[in-house]
Each structure stands twice: as structure tokens, then as C-alpha cells.
């Protein structure tokens, strides 16, 4: 898994009180096992942005994302008594969140991974792309535009892109969670990035026209 997941596990969440931050997950979990409400809240505050953002990226609907985040936290807190090893808490939570979201997508009959297997088409060749050097994506991207572009991705592509590029899961982890092959995960990711590139260029061109 990529580093940013574990960075979160190190307690760099929303806690502004240094004392609380230093309490770290380990103590919060132990206290949560005893039914301490404040401890549950500490754990929630540490991870709420990460969990909610993941849900929002995957379903693109704030109300639904909040319901899913709530469900993920509840599932986790119900099992906190069985938790063995606080160091993996964030990993546990994030996997659980992914499972909750994927389960929700499956229930709705939405594909969690695209059935399309072909890797590229002639239209996707860089030589044939529209847009000259003036439309190159350079520097940092507009975050809002990127969010909007991700929302436009087909569900299957979106799942893999969010899990890999936003969340930092590795392809073998994604393959296990989503139920596809590693090769499929890699090709879906590539296609998702290509689509996002097209969307972003289009948005940039539109913006330039308006100006």
C-alpha cells in the first residue's frame, strides 16, 4: 500500500489538541472497547475526512456518501472489541469502508469493475489526440475540475482509479477487494487516467473559450 494510508494511521487526522493526538489510536481503541464515547469520537475524528472522501469519490453523492461513511464506522465500532493490533486500525477501517461501498454498488447492480478488457484503441493514441501544446496539462491541476472529472468516470473505472490513485491501494489489494485480476486492475487504471486526461483537457478548453 502507498504511504499516505499509513501516514493517516500515524494519527495525523483532525485532532488539534496535541494531547489527544498523542494519545494515539492505541489508547483510544482500548478506551472504546470499554464503551467510552469520547474514545469513539477521537477515532471518528481521526478518520472521518478520509472515510467520507473515499465514499464521496466512489458514489459522487454527498448524502449517500454520508450514509456509507456512517455504515463503515458503525461496522468498525461494532467490531472494535475484536481488534487485535492498533497499528493496522486505519488499514482495517479503510478496507471496511471500501467493502461497504462496493457492497452498496453491487446491491444497486452497478459494476465495480469495467467489463471492457481492451487496453487501447487508435483513438486513444497520443498522436491522434485533439489539442495542441496549448492544451497540455501542466503545473498543478484545478482540484475542483479533477473532482468533477472523476465524477464523470464510468463506475468501473472510477472504482479502480479512486482505490489506486486517490487511496493508494496496490493493484494486488484492489484485485482482491474488487474481485478482478491484477492485470485488469492495471489496464482499468490506465484507461481511467486516459479518460480523465480527456475530460480535463476538454474542461480546460471550455474554460479558455469562456475567458
Amino acid at each position, binding site marked *: 500500500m502507498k504511504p499516505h494510508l499509513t501516514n493517516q494511521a500515524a494519527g495525523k487526522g483532525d485532532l488539534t489538541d496535541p494531547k489527544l493526538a498523542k494519545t494515539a489510536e492505541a489508547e483510544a481503541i482500548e478506551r472504546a472497547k470499554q464503551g467510552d464515547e469520547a474514545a469513539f469520537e477521537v477515532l471518528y475524528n481521526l478518520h472521518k475526512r478520509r472515510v467520507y472522501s473515499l465514499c464521496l469519490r466512489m458514489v459522487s453523492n454527498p448524502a449517500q456518501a454520508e450514509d456509507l461513511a456512517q455504515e463503515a464506522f458503525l461496522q468498525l465500532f461494532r467490531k472494535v472489541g475484536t481488534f487485535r493490533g492498533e497499528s493496522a486500525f486505519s488499514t482495517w477501517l479503510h478496507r471496511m469502508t471500501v*467493502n461497504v461501498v462496493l457492497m452498496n454498488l453491487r446491491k444497486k447492480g452497478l459494476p465495480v469493475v469495467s467489463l471492457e478488457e481492451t487496453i487501447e484503441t487508435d483513438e486513444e493514441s497520443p498522436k491522434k489526440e485533439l489539442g495542441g501544446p496549448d492544451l497540455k496539462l501542466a503545473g498543478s491541476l484545478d482540484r475542483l475540475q479533477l473532482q468533477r472529472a472523476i465524477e464523470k468516470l464510468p463506475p468501473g473505472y472510477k472504482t479502480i482509479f479512486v482505490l489506486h490513485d486517490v487511496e493508494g491501494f496496490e493493484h494486488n489489494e484492489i*484485485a482482491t477487494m474488487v*474481485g478482478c*485480476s*491484477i*492485470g485488469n486492475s492495471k489496464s482499468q487504471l490506465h484507461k481511467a487516467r486516459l479518460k480523465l486526461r480527456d475530460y480535463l483537457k476538454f474542461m480546460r478548453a471550455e474554460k479558455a473559450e469562456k475567458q
Partner: protein
Amino acid sequence: MESMQHTAIVGLVVVACLASAATAETRREYRYPVGPKASVTVDTEYGSISVKPGTTREVVVVALIHSDKAKIDISQEGNRLEFESHLLPGADEQTGRVDYEVTVPPDTTLNLHSSNGPISAERIQADVAVEGATAPVEIRSVGHGHVHVKTMKGTITLSDVRSAHVEITSISGDVHLNSVSGPLVQVNSGSGRIYYDGDFGSGGDYNFSTHTGDIEALIASGASADFTAHSMQGHVQSDVPLKPKENNRFPVEVGRSFFGTVGKAASEVILKSFSGKIRLKQR
């Protein structure tokens, strides 16, 4: 006196029975019917994992639990099965040990983790991801998928792995690759030695890298590859006559690097070490 002896004997028998109960081995068998392209994860801290292909569409897991200090958590979601050893307080290397013998349909994706026990998988035509630590890992007759292996110091042996994407990382374990071909074969080792015996396929990328470990490649006749070898502080040697290349990645340092091709140079082979020896030999 006789009574005291009697009491002592009874006490010993009771203690022996309790001890025996605490360390009793239990054999458990689990069977799950699965569809095509199922996924099986086995995760244990102590104990071996062995996976073989079966002839039915059923996952069969035989677990040998070495004491009541270890339990198995099983979860199933559709075609995905997870078996995880769960240690109870006081479990150690002996009492926490669970050995798994797994039979799966050959198209089953495998995720195998054991911190201290040997792991083996054979005759699987799907992705295989293995994470060991100190014990050996052996993968045989696997193809058409991704094979990812990580160990700290366990020896890694891959045999007859074809048309695969192989990624291996080990800090001090030796890596043996016998008849392994990719589109991609990548090995990152620290002090472990890398030994390759094969023909480097036809059109793949092979990238072997070590810190102090030696690299030895024994190439079969008929191989077709473009070789680049460079050891920054170690010695390199090619016993194979290589055709010179026009453009090298860096200037040839006698004894530290060599370049050249055999056959039509279909595959690209990069052998790199920081201070280990690199040797290319003809089989």
C-alpha cells in the same frame, strides 16, 4: 505415605491430561464450492501454506491447528474466501501454529501470507501474491498471471513460471528462477543471491538488482536477449560471447560492466548490483 504418593500420581496424571489437551492438534477441513476465477486468501503468523490445484470447482482447506491457542477466522463474500489464523493470548511459535493444505480450482487467485512458515503453490493459472518472512517460498508451474513475492530472508524459488508478470522483493533471501519467463520479471534483492536459469523468453523485460548479493544467469542455447550488466563496486564477467551494441547506457568499465546481445535481442535483460558479482554463463 501411600496416600500422599497416590495423590501425587493422580495430580501428575491430571496435569499431563491438561497439558495434552492444551497442546492437542486439531485437523479441520473446510469445503466451499466456488465459481470461475475465485479468490482465496490465507493469512497465518506461524505455520506452512501449501496450495495445489484440484479437479472440482471446490476450495478445500485442511487446517492443522496445533493447539487451542489458535483459531481460524473464515469469511466468504461471493467467490472470495479468506482464512486467517487468530492467535489467543499466550500463543507462541509452537502453540500458535496452523498449517494449511489448500486445494483450489486452477483459475483461483491466491493471496498467501505466513510470517514464519514455508509457502508453496503449484499448477495455478491465475495471480499469485505471496508474502513470507523468514521461511522459504516455492512457486511451481504457474502462468498467465501476476506472481508477486516478498520475503525478508526466506529463499524464493520459482520454477516453470511462464508468460507471467513476476515481481520479487527480498532483503536477504536467495532468489532462484528456473525456466521463468515474463512479459516482466523483476527482482529486487539486498544481500540475497539471484540465480536465473532459462532462456529469457521471447520479448520480455528482465530486471535483476541487488545490493551485495551476487547475480548469476545461466542462459539456454537459443536465447535472444539484449544484456546490460553493471556492478558499481563488484566484478562482472560474461562467459557468453555477446555481440557488441552501438549505444550503451554508460561507458564500459572493464570488470564492472558489460553489454551486448545474443540472438535477435528479443528480450531486455538488466543485471545490476551495487557491490555483488555478476556472471553470465552459457548452459
